[in-house]
């Protein structure tokens, strides 16, 4: 089981903006007991979904070579609660990015209705000697990006398709080769 709080990307322009869809379903267990008898999408998980949308926008800017972590939720206001059957679109817009981290402004919409406004700060974990551990296995990570259709919709700023970083492709090929051997 994975911690997925977006279903897939619908828009992704490198270094600028990303949009992802989250379909809220009563099949999700967390809706059953958050408020007993009143099923709503917990606001904290809307923040998590926007953090995933924005975090991948931040990570992609440096070809996923930086270790990106959510450092701070600067602002979160919610205008109504999302309920089972609702489809939310999370839009993350890059405000600033440098070697230390990034600031992202986010919104959640249901159709034309603004559901939430969430501003996030991400940090790039500094690399330390003898500690180059990855946050994710690169082959698994690429599988996740494919699942989220990032490279189906991803575009460079000139409109050309986004390319998959070589280090992720190599990890995927190495994993496939190892699987074949087994």
């Amino acid at each position, binding site marked *: 089981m994975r911690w997925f709080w977006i279903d897939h990307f619908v828009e992704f322009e490198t270094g600028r903006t990303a949009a992802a869809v989250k379909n809220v379903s009563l099949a999700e267990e967390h809706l059953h007991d958050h408020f007993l008898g009143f099923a709503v999408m917990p606001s904290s998980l809307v923040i998590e979904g926007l953090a995933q949308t924005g975090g991948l926008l931040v990570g992609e800017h440096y070809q996923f070579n930086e270790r990106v972590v959510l*450092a*701070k939720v*600067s602002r979160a206001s919610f205008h109504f609660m999302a309920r089972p059957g609702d489809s939310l679109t999370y839009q993350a817009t890059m*405000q600033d990015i440098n070697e230390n*981290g990034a*600031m992202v402004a986010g919104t959640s919409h249901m159709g034309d209705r603004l559901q939430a406004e969430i501003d996030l*700060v991400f940090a790039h974990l500094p690399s330390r000697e003898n500690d180059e551990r990855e946050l994710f296995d690169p082959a698994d990570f690429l599988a996740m990006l494919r699942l989220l259709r990032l490279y189906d919709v991803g575009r460079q700023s000139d409109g050309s398709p986004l390319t998959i970083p070589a280090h992720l492709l190599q990890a995927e090929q190495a994993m496939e080769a190892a699987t074949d051997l087994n």
Partner: protein
Amino acid sequence: MTNEDVFSKVQTALVDALGVDDDEVTPEATMVGDLGAESIDFLDIVFRLEKSFDIKIPRGELFPEDILTNAEYVEDGKINDEGLAKLKEKLPFFDLSEFERNPVVQNFANILTVSDICRYVESKIGANQA
């Protein structure tokens, strides 16, 4: 830009980043003790200052973690003379006299005031205009 303009913009950045009220952000207020800034807030503050003043703040310049965590400059949790000299060289805009009396690493963040931030920004703007 006058010193009042700098203070006003720094105040806005700190109000937005730390969720404090305008009147809490006085020149004498300490970042950690009075305004409740945590280490990760400094990243947020740096972004806001860069944007507001159109300056570039390199990693470790406003908060010199590279000196404060360097075994060469830290002995038994205190900054040694060499480290203090390095801090003064790197942070000429900070008033370190209070810190020098008892240079415990953990105290460093506590002595940083809103005035120090303003002086830092003024030095950056001055460098840009030079």
